[in-house]
């Protein structure tokens, strides 16, 4: 997956988390999610699961 694809995937995962928890993430929450998943090579689904675990 290209860097661009990974960027788009993270962005889409944030949107999906927000849809599932019915609110926008704050900048800080966004940043925390990024730190949490950096270097782990998570799939879209796993990023969403991690986000729901953190903010859901």
């Amino acid at each position, binding site marked *: 997956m*290209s*860097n*661009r*694809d*990974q*960027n*788009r*995937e*993270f*962005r889409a995962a944030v949107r999906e988390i927000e849809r599932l928890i019915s*609110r*926008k993430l*704050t*900048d*800080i929450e966004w*940043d*925390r999610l*990024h*730190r*949490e*998943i*950096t*270097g782990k090579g998570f799939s879209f689904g796993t990023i969403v699961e991690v986000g729901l675990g953190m903010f859901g």
Partner: protein
Amino acid sequence: MVCLGKRRMKVAAPNIREYFEPVLGTRPWKAKLGVGSFLTLDFGRRVKDRGHMHGEWHLWIYLSNWALFHGDRRLADSDSDRHVIAVAVRRLEETSLTDLRFEREQLKTTFVFGDFRLVVSGADYLDDADERDYYWLLFMPTKEVLRVGPSGIQVERDETPHYA
């Protein structure tokens, strides 16, 4: 404007450089590749937040096209191989942030680290970019977040600092 615990501060044409004054002349103690081509640079006091160390001043290069130069030599850009990026960006830990240039018309930012220049502009790979697709964000110990994105420059204050 109030939104989920955040207060959007209306700042008329903020001078971006002013926000960086406290870290100008200091080195990022961590300059790291994140997801995709995202970069994070940490300045100032080390703080721990949920098991992760980061700086009181935390710069996140987010949905953007960027290029890193050393003099005239292009070391890496946002489409480079991830290993190349990881090695290149760590070189920013060697030197201080010495200047910041902002071209308001193009919303292009150049972060100057001595002989290194990190040039950041908007992402050209989003078909449906919206106002939240920031090019970069600066988290500050003052609880403010400075953001540059498709809608221009925004400064927001959050209820809690990012290391609370």
